[in-house]
């Protein structure tokens, strides 16, 4: 029997609104009890004084790049990045090569992640074969595979045809699955390279107007309402999208939404350097959008923080802005960014912030026992965070194979100290345990 006792931590658990000092006993990989002053007995004691203990984080939106783009990331390095960021579950997107539009690919990703053993992986299936937007992928086959895919997205590529999108929503409901459409009307973003506005105007970069996102989200909400199927809106980036989702939720439309740490913090004026690490899709917006996104995350209009962790090899980012690919690293900085910018500034209380990393994402799709809270009998997925840790983001120190963080050089507060997956340390004292 193995027994661990996490002693004197500030246990923050959104499933029970618990935010108080307590001990967590883990026996043979499961949470055995949570409460004050638990007896040590034979347990190995992990001193958590001054530390925060939470359920393990869940990321709804991850690019692990394997198979196909292992120059940027693979399942091993991406899993290490997840563990270092306090995540115990991630949802890799389908835009690999080959595309995750069949059980074979989903199961390959899952099997590889089990071998690595640092994070539980819940693949996202493609909506359409090859992400081409034409024929539906076999949702049923993906859903009945060992990976139990119940979320479908052509992330990176919008489902532009409203008929395909409508049918995808309808068909997905057979399997209680949620459809997540990359919200971008492609004809409005032809050649677009950054947010359309005063900054793009001066920098001479083709604009990605907010309307391109909002038109697509509005369409999808109408379609979802029409057929009574569930929609998940990824990486919300504009104040207008927030308003659409808020109104839809008030009308009872079954929609969930996520926002990335970078859209909560960064704005398009930073792009005056043409640093391609700031190039992302949807693009960084403006202060007005950031404010709306923060409010929406606080009031629950947006359910989850999702990283959209998108590694790219340095040689691809070391291009002219126009030729550099879109995407930013996120797993290792996500919670620290949200804590530093939103919790410390009072936009979110700690319990809500933790909820957006745990119960929020687990309400969107099935991620097994993740996001369920620290309860006796549940597998021990937990994250222990040092709220006093102040660190500077140094790209070369990250676990990811890539270096494209937009937060390089930033000072962040909080860092995961330990991450446990089924009671096993995947991160201990800040070191990833392969």
């Amino acid at each position, binding site marked *: 029997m193995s027994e661990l006792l996490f002693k004197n931590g500030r246990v923050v658990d959104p499933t029970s609104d618990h935010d108080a000092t307590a001990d967590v006993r883990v026996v043979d990989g499961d949470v055995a009890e949570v409460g004050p002053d638990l007896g040590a007995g034979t347990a190995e004691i992990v001193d958590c004084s001054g530390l925060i203990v939470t359920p393990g984080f869940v990321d709804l939106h991850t690019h692990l790049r394997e198979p196909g783009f292992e120059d940027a990331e693979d399942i091993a390095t991406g899993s290490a990045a997840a563990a270092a960021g306090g995540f115990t579950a991630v949802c890799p997107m389908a835009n690999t090569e080959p595309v995750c539009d069949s059980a074979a690919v989903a199961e390959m990703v899952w099997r590889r992640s089990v071998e690595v053993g640092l994070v539980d992986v819940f693949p996202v299936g493609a909506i359409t074969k090859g992400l081409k937007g034409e024929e539906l992928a076999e949702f049923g086959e993906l859903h009945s595979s060992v990976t139990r895919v119940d979320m479908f997205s052509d992330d990176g590529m919008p489902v532009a045809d409203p008929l395909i999108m409508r049918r995808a929503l309808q068909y997905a409901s057979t399997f209680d699955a949620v459809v997540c459409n990359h919200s971008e009307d492609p004809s409005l973003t*032809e050649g677009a390279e950054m947010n*359309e*506005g*005063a900054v*793009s*105007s*001066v*920098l*001479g*970069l*083709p*604009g990605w*107007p907010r309307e391109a996102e909002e038109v697509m989200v509005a369409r999808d909400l109408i379609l979802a309402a029409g057929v009574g199927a569930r929609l998940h809106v990824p990486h919300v980036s504009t104040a207008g999208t927030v308003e659409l989702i808020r109104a839809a939720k008030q009308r009872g439309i079954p929609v969930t939404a996520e926002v990335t740490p970078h859209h909560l913090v960064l704005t398009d004026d930073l792009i005056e*350097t*043409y640093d391609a690490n700031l190039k992302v899709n949807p693009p960084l917006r403006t202060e007005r959008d950031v404010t709306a996104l923060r409010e929406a995350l606080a009031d629950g209009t947006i359910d989850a923080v999702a990283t959209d962790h998108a590694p790219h090899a340095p*040689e*691809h980012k*070391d*291009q*002219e*802005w*126009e*030729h550099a690919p879109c995407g930013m690293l996120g797993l290792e900085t996500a919670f620290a960014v949200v804590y530093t910018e939103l919790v410390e500034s009072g936009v979110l209380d700690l319990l809500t912030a933790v909820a957006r990393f745990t119960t929020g994402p687990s309400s969107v799709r099935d991620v097994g026992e993740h996001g369920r809270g620290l309860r006796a009998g549940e597998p021990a997925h937990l994250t222990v965070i040092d709220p006093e840790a102040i660190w500077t983001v140094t790209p070369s120190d990250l676990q990811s194979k890539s270096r494209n963080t937009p937060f390089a050089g930033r000072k962040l507060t909080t860092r995961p100290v330990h991450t446990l997956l089924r009671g096993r340390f995947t991160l201990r004292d800040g070191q990833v345990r392969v």
Partner: protein
Amino acid sequence: MTSTAPPAETTTAARMKHLIAIGDLDAAQIELILDTAESLREIATRPIKKVPTLRGRTVCNLFLEDSTRTRISFDIAAKRLSADVINFSAKGSSVSKGESFKDTALTLRAMGVDAVVVRSHSAGAPLQLAHYLDVPILNAGDGWHQHPTQALLDLFTMRDHLGRLDGIDVAIVGDILHSRVARSEVQGLNTMGANVTLVAPPTLLPPEVDTWEVSVARTIDEVVAEVDVVYLLRVQRERMNRAFFPSTREYARFWGMDSERLERLREGAIVMHPGPMNRGVEITADVADSDRQVITDQVTNGIAVRMACLYLLLSGRGDEVEVGA
């Protein structure tokens, strides 16, 4: 060699390290460039059009986008100053050669060039280059972003014809959205105290143009009688395929310069165009050949202005104050 020197008096203008965007320059720096160009202009009239000022210096023309006029103009400018010129051309980006932009930059650094003149389809490429190289970078046009020497030669031409820049009224007409020339023009004119009006259909105006400190007019008729300069931009015919405007015929009707409008110009007002012109679209042939156009002067002045820029960026490096020495 007094004639090759810039203005005899020393200047208080701060030394430029690069020339990437006109907005990086203040009025004193722009004036220094124009005055220097003025004194270098005379070289073009000599039987032997060459001075030894930049002998032993190597200027690399890095042209990653097709360009004939600008490349030739820079080529002549550098050669008249006796610099060695190497041409590094690649169609498309560095990507098409399978090399990252960073590697292209590091290659140039390793070759020990003294300055790089860069033209790129990609906005921001000159600024990115400046991160990798510690020699002066001259932006010869980057995407829709900037074309600073074009704006400087235009300012030179306006000052030459109108006698001043402060307080003059300039209309820039046409495809502002896709124009690096317009972006540089507006910044340069604003810095020098001119009043700028942009004239274009809303489809061809930059987003949030109200942040640009310019006036906006809807059609050319609203402004033609009230400006000292009508600056026409080239309109690419393929724009009408993407619904920016319905046809070249309709464009010419509302935004083109024709002889009837020419009649309504202020006395002494001039018509400018950065070239190449689309005769019959933004400018009719009779306007292009009229006595109000200064379009060929722009081309001639371009050489003197580019000589001035090369001179100021390359000579007396390490001399932080006395640019004119």
